[in-house]
């Protein structure tokens, strides 16, 4: 199932992905409500990415008492127009987990169980918000542009697996 990962080794901590994510979803730049984030320690240089694993995790969906986390089919085209970027233009079909705001009661159960800390109460709408892969046009991947440090991707490598919780179900 497609989901975004941030490589802790490659990421430079530029936060371009968070900025683009918030601009796309909120209509203005507001990274405090981005749907993914890169946690960076400026002194040590250490980085840890936080992204939604979608159906590879689905803990939010399992715990939701009102069925507000719904599975949605999407067709995703890997964005970007920089030639060095791998897989640009590749079309991926799959599913993402999205919030049905009419059903969400903002009970907070999903906020508690999310292993990567990427589902929260929206500060204005007071319902849960989370990554929906920009409905197939993921801006985080588009804005991870430097050919030497491409870090936000759909690819899963060993370093990334180590970053994510071991108990994440397949």
């Amino acid at each position: 199932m497609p989901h975004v990962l941030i490589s802790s080794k490659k990421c430079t901590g530029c936060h371009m992905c968070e900025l683009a994510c918030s601009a796309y979803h909120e209509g203005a730049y507001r990274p405090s409500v981005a749907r993914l984030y890169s946690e960076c320690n400026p002194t040590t240089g250490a980085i840890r990415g936080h992204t939604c694993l979608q159906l590879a995790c689905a803990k939010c969906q399992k715990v939701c008492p009102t069925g507000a986390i719904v599975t949605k089919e999407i067709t995703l085209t890997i964005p970007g127009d920089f030639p060095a970027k791998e897989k640009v233009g590749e079309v991926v079909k799959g599913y993402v987990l999205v919030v049905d705001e009419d059903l969400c009661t903002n009970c907070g159960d999903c906020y508690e169980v999310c292993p990567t800390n990427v589902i929260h109460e929206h500060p204005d709408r007071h319902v849960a918000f989370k990554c929906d892969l920009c409905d197939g046009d993921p801006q985080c991947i588009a804005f991870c542009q430097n050919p030497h440090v491409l870090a936000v991707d759909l690819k899963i490598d060993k370093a990334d697996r180590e970053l994510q919780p071991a108990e994440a179900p397949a």
Partner: protein
Amino acid sequence: MDFYQGKVLRLDLSTSTSVVEPLNMEWAERYIGGKGLLLRYLWDEVPPQVDPWAPENPVILMTGPFAGTNVSTSSRLVVGCKSPQTGILNDSYVGGSFAPEMKFAGYDVIIIIGESPEPVVVTIKDDVVSFVPAKPKYWGMRTSEIEQALRDDFDPDAKTLSIGPAGENEILWACLSTDQFHKAGRGGHGALWGHKKLKAVAIRGTGSVSVGDARAFLADLLRIHSEYVLTEDNLWANEEGTPILAQVMSDAGVMPTRNWSSGTFDEVENINSDAFLKIRTRNRACYQCAIGCRQFHEIDGVTGEGPEYETIALCGGNCGIGDISALMKFNELCDQLGLDTISTGSVVGLAMDLTERGIKDFGMRFGETEGYLKAPGLLAAREGLGADLALGVRALAAKYGVPELAMEVKNMELPGYDPRGAFGMSLGYATSDRGGCHMRTYPIADEVVAGTVAPDTLDGKALKIVWGNPAEGMIGENFSAVKFAGIWCDFWAITPEQIAQLLKHVWKHEFSEGEVFRIGERIWNLGRLFNLREGVEPDTIPQKLYSEEGAHTTGASAGRFIGAETFEKALREFYQIRGWDENGVPSEAKLAEVGVDVRL
């Protein structure tokens, strides 16, 4: 208004009060932001002829319109004041993530006035401003410690601008730090903060920056980044970074060596980019920067970003230090204490020179690491001979009767380009609006890096200093002024046409290349007026750097000299091109032409 938040936060340290004022949008339209808007605010906020140490001398933190968006490299903050080091304007730039956080907290500008009776930390969470006692916990902390402490105590996502012990002790070139390794380095902002007893400003913002149609803006930025930012012209900064300049400058006879006694460093291969690539661990980026030039290095237990070329030149070659491990350690000490490395390397090099000449024994000699590594600590604490070092090169050299050994302009120590190897920089240093600085114009790009212009002549250089050649990467003063209004980083070799494309998003109308340049010229003239109002020293450089007697006897630039007459002629030509009189005063016609809205 899109891109701007329309708000100025004014902090009064004397009364521990804050007030929010509207941003002057008329000034924003005329001067954009960053350097331009900073200078306009300084003109009104600095009482004419004020003592730089007086509580009335403000510190202004200024963002640009693109901070907090995806516009690459525009996360830079400019900090401004009347410098306690030079007595003239000081605009000091720093990357990292502080400026975007200011925007998300809702402010384009923060003006800090007054002087706190006791050491203080100011915390800002959106519209909540608190003045927190800095004693006993925070005062005395090193830069990494204060940042971590404020993340722990105030907000885990806080971005901090702070001083280290050097600032607390009012060392004239103490800097401001953010994200640990990023410094508003030059001109002594840290000293002024220390004098105002301001240890740090920590900020956290959860609001938004609007840009009109955000999705259309995102789409245009993807194009702009691919076409203009992530290109070969810029990616060198990610791949090798400024250490690449060490070998180039040494080979050209431009790298300050052993207190400016040569332009070629015989041990440069130990501290050039090949040497640093061997100890590179990873790249980091400033906020909203796709290039990611910040290189982490690790050796002998020292881990950190940098050093950049200027540090390699002044703290390496200029101190005769070819030991990469010692250089990394020295850089770390300066980072932690909050010292500008250019001025620190310069004054340590001078102390070594005084020792070698038998004039005064500072316990440090060229190439010896023991005394060298003690210097930053002694200096920052003004301990023992550190009190002498804290004088800066001008006063230190004068104290021991050898003023000719001090390499500074307007009391700001010179960076890593010896004009005897590339003549254009002589005029750049002399006419820089904040003293001895390489960031206002960079003729080195043509003279040395590209090698497209002869380095050993001043013919035609005045025109280039003023206007540059931005299409080919050479930045002139007018263009740097508008670029720093953006605020774009020098590592994006942006062109006037690309600036016009971005400004169109803000002001919704077309800008011609001429208009972009004119904004820069307007800003430069405003800066000149400010300096004239405050009383600026003559535009010149140390005699050694242009006289026949001062010519190098070793290295790649041996035997070259500009000559006093040639230098003065070029300066007159510079004033003429600028539309300034022989004393460097802008004419009324020029001020009206470029749209400066103040007069002396």
